[in-house]
């Protein structure tokens, strides 16, 4: 049985733990709790440089404080003229050489890590995913698997997954802080980076290169699942029959409306090269609507009727006929039923 003191201590520990955790930010978003190979390499360097730099800072501050305490002009010293010192060879050498040594301690691991992360010799034998950055959403094409998705990128835990990234418009930058540092997504040359996650879970990804009004709303997720679940998911996605009709009448009507309202010009259901809008094959399984909003029917209806307020400057606004409440409702019903797999962000722990 816990005594009064014991309870207090447990509470205190719990409280400080929460504080520490919140101090590091949200788990699976913050770079301060690395859960992937890239993020860990960066973190090692971050810690090393911070420690060395704090040491330098401490030295500076000690001299600074002592100087200010000792040499402030005191009463009765108004006419005191200090000795005019020109310099001191030894001292000056010391504070040139020591920083150089400290910098070498930082530079060597930096260079090693830079080359290590750029080593892509095993790319051919790994999972490759072609990533396209668009204002303001991400397109993921599983090379050779005939699977395209958006917003949620499914990868297996503990495996290197190569992302071959190109932009369709302006420069973006793909960043999943907890798993890996960022890499720019340029319109001209394909950039490759790999992600290797240590733990299953759903990780937040962000666009880090300023790309327009909705730059801050270009979030996506990386859904890390076990290798078996990954295989299942791939199979489920490949087995989707895009023509399949929903059971209930509202959704059936929604499917017809989806075809009538020009949605298909940009959105594909099932594997397709169309990529002017997110592929909606597994839309009902999404972790978020448009990467940011909770996936509810209300939010979806709002999106369909007025995407502009949710994502200013997005490329869907105004490209399809205005939708009445019933129509939007029916389409929403249909889209939310697109749930081809049991492997979802939810099952992965979202």
């Amino acid at each position, binding site marked *: 049985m816990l005594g009064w003191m014991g309870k207090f201590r447990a509470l205190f520990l719990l409280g400080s733990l929460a504080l520490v955790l919140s101090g590091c930010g949200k788990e699976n978003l913050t770079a301060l709790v690395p859960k992937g190979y890239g993020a860990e390499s960066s973190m090692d360097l*971050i810690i090393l440089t911070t420690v060395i730099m704090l040491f330098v800072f401490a030295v500076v501050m000690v001299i600074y404080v002592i100087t200010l305490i000792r040499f402030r002009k005191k009463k009765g010293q108004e006419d005191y003229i*200090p000795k005019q010192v020109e310099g001191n060879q030894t001292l*000056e050498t010391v*504070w040139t050489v020591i920083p150089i040594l400290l910098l070498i301690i930082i530079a060597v691991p930096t260079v090693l890590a830079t080359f290590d992360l750029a080593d892509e010799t095993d790319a051919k034998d790994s999972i490759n995913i072609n990533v396209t950055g668009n204002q303001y959403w991400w397109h993921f094409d599983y090379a050779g698997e005939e699977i395209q998705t958006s917003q949620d990128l499914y990868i297996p835990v503990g495996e290197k997954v190569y992302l071959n990234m190109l932009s369709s418009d*302006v420069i973006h930058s793909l960043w999943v802080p907890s798993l890996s*540092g960022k890499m*720019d997504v340029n319109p001209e040359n394909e950039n490759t980076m790999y992600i290797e996650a240590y733990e299953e879970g759903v990780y937040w990804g962000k666009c880090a290169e300023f790309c327009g009004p909705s730059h801050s709303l270009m979030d996506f997720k990386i859904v890390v699942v076990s290798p078996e679940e990954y295989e299942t998911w791939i199979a489920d996605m490949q087995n989707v029959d895009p023509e399949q009709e929903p059971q209930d009448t509202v959704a059936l009507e929604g499917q017809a409306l989806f075809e009538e309202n020009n949605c298909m010009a940009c959105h594909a259901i099932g594997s397709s090269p169309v990529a002017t809008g997110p592929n909606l094959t597994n839309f009902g399984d999404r972790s978020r609507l448009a990467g940011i909003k909770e996936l509810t029917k209300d939010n979806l209806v709002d999106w369909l009727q007025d995407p502009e307020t949710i994502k200013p400057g997005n490329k869907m606004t105004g490209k399809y006929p205005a939708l009445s409440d019933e129509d939007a409702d029916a389409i929403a019903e249909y889209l939310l039923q697109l749930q081809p797999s049991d492997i979802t962000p939810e099952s992965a722990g979202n």
Partner: protein
Amino acid sequence: MSNAATQNKGFAAVLWDYLTTVDHKKIGKLYLYAGGLFFLLGGLEAMIIRIQLIKPENNFISAGLYNEMITMHGTTMIFLAAMPLLLGLMNAIMPLQIGARDVAFPFLNSLGFWMFLFGGIMLNVSWFTGGAPDSGWTAYAPLSTQSPGHGVDYYVMGLQLSGAGTLMGGINFLVTIVNMRAPGMTYMRMPLFTWTTFVVSILILFAFPALTVGLFLLMFDRMFGAAFFDVALGGNSIIWQHLFWIFGHPEVYILILPAFGLFSDIFSTFSKKRLFGYTAMVFATILIAFLGFMVWAHHMFTVGMGPVANSIFAIATMAIAVPTGIKIFNWLLTLWGGSITINSAMLWSLGFIPSFTLGGMTGVMVAAAVADYQYHDTYFVVAHFHYVIVGGVVFGILAGLHYWWPKIFGRILHEGMGKLTFWTFFIGFHLTFFIQHFLGLMGMPRRYWVFLEDQGLDTGNLISTIGAFFMAFGVIVFLINAIYTAVKGEKAPADPWDGRTLEWAISSPPPHYNFKQLPLVRGLDPLWIEKMEGKGKMTPAEPLGDIHMPNGSIIPFVMSLGFFIASFGFIYQTNYDIAYIFLFGGMAIGLGSMLVRSLKDDHGYHITKEELEREAD
């Protein structure tokens, strides 16, 4: 031309005087006034940004307007506030420090100012003509080439104008320091502020052309259908980043080095000691400037340049920490063993040491390429460069203003208000920016209009915004102080701080010809030497004689106005043919002014020996 005549002038006469002046002291003041106004504007934009980010998913301003705010905040603060405020101090003080009567090219000096001012106005006109530039102060292509409306066009033309002005200023200072030093003022006797002005002028000379080229390419792409940055047509958007940072990184040193220079002067004055390791300080400055050109691609670690380039630029960047460290320790050792007076100017300088050291520390941290994959484009970097630019440059400008205010304006700023400004601004500054290091690592990229709920970013952002209000308060107190001082401030003697360098050897404010007789310089800290040897004033290096002075001229103003008008023509010729009238009309005015200037002989005038004798010392 005597003092009495200049005193009772009407407003129109004063205005005309300033429009036509070629006097480096007045041009310095113009830079300070204009830079000050733009600083307030940039500050206002910063406050709007911080209010928008006070809570998650805030809707204080729209996404589009937010992007205009961040773009204009950055552009304004760098090009229209920090640069001109420093140029103002350099103009007002550097010629005095080398014992010169004016700069080498007074006409060019005035032209440089008016080009800068019209460029600044140009940029800000965009607010009223359909929207300010919105592609960030770095204007990365293709976002900038695709940005709709004319905002980015204003960015291009505004920066082109003010950039040309800065380039002129740089050339002018360079020639001035090479040619116009007083007898005995060898290079190794120049005060550090003059040294840094010299080095910075070289940086301007080499760095600004890269910006000019980049802006021209952007201009051709946006206004004349070229495709330098258009990937679909075979262009390359990464080129812009290189051009921008080949300019942009030296620009950081263009801003910080003058601050380093004036801190050196201030530390030495208020600890009553000669600058420790003067030679090392000079060579550290030169080394920083040199390395400053070798590191631009550290802004591009995530572009995909490959491990070789990333490693080279990482190491080159780290190397800069060495000369910078040398400077910090030399300042500390200047203070060590001194007799330290702490007043407002000194407070800013002392506040600078820990603040800037933190900025330098994070500088080394972001130089480690792989670590930068996490920092890059996040609030960590925002925190880093604000520690450098506010903690270094802005603190420097404020230190310089408190220090030289008596020399420039003839009155001493109020100490109490000065201290209040410092403490509120200093605390506010650390509140605002320290926490941003963590925000960045916790997953907040920069240039985010909103951050989402429940991402652990709320508290940090709130603290940051509170800090910004402290800073704003400090700035307001400073403004009140400036106005109060102008009206009721204590009149300044020639040498209020027991100074060491030549500017303190003449009255505050100095007469328009500065030195009646050029001084003879006998070593580093020339005035101090004379004081120590009991004379207390400079020995003249020449007999009293006529002084040759340049005439004022309205041509620089008219010329800049011409290019200003032409810029509108360039922007709007894409929509309306009538804009060609502005384009050609403006160019005609600008080029016509050049012609007039070239053909008309202007030999200036002389202040005669008799007039000088009549004026009291």
